[in-house]
């Protein structure tokens, strides 16, 4: 039957949508949150400007732990499922609880499209702890991952693009020192070996688009975010990237 379907061309969709149709990000690793593209978003024209904004985005996995913004001017614009953060308007979304109640080992996967890398552009932060963050540091190669009083500044081996892409950050505390790896799509562009030494402290993050308060804001689109409390295997990471790319139109 499958043979005849393929011969007749009926199998095309099986293969072109196979990753999306049969694979799901929550089937791999230990997922803690999944802000899925164009799902569970509260969209309305809150500020009367005839464009829609997103006031809430719930996780498609586990407790909803919605990321919300009650102030209209600080709500990212809704753009066909993509959230468009406008830096001068101080736009950010904050969760009701820390992602994963704090993360030791982790894999954090974003689908993003930065508008620029001209300032410190924070993708992820902690409203209560200004020194917990991940950001692009005024450059399309430089990043900073920082928490628990330790910071890791890195220079990627290739520039991060302005086109939409998948960014993945992993931390593995089972090794000493705890290596952090950063991937641009499937390419490992940062492999940090000096980060955090032997410490196994929790990393707490609860918001996207901003460091604490209104500092070093992100400028650009966030389309999807998935967070696991472990380091995905190479195979699972590759499958997850392919799935997120397919869904978000990378």
């Amino acid at each position, binding site marked *: 039957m499958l043979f005849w379907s393929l011969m007749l061309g009926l199998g095309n969709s099986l293969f072109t949508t196979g990753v999306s149709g049969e694979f799901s990000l929550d089937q791999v690793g230990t997922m803690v949150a999944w802000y899925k593209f164009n799902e569970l978003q509260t969209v309305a024209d809150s500020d009367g400007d005839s464009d829609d904004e997103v006031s*809430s985005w719930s996780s498609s996995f586990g407790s909803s732990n919605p990321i919300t913004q009650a102030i209209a001017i600080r709500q990212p614009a809704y753009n066909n499922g993509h959230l468009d953060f406008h830096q001068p308007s101080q736009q950010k979304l904050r969760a009701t609880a820390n992602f994963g109640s704090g993360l030791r080992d982790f894999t954090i996967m974003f689908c993003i499209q930065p508008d620029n890398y001209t300032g410190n552009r924070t993708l992820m932060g902690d409203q209560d702890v200004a020194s917990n963050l991940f950001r692009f540091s005024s450059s399309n190669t430089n990043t900073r991952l920082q928490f628990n009083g330790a910071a890791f500044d890195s220079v990627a081996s290739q520039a991060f693009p302005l086109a939409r892409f998948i960014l993945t950050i992993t931390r593995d505390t089972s090794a000493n020192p705890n290596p952090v790896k950063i991937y641009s799509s499937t390419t490992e562009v940062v492999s940090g070996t000096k980060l955090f030494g032997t410490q196994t402290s929790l990393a707490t993050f609860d918001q996207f688009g901003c460091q604490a308060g209104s500092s070093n804001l992100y400028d650009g689109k966030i389309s999807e975010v998935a967070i696991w409390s472990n380091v995905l295997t190479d195979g699972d990471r590759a499958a997850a990237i392919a799935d997120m790319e397919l869904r978000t139109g990378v």
Partner: protein
Amino acid sequence: MKWYISTLENCNAIKKYQNSFYKLPNNTGTTDYSAPQQLQGETNYCLVISDSYYNKLSDEDKAKCRNTMPSNYEWVYED
């Protein structure tokens, strides 16, 4: 977009009127159009005003608005 700069009391008064203009809070979780934020290193506060609502302000309040974002509106933390 304009940036209204004044005391917290004045900013809260304008916030209230601007919310009424936009019929906020609404039923989708939005409570305010904007909220006063203390300017870094100052006692004054800043409130974002939409261009539409700006036209409703008195001349006295329009005079308290800037066309560009104050540099100390974004709070810059030490690394």
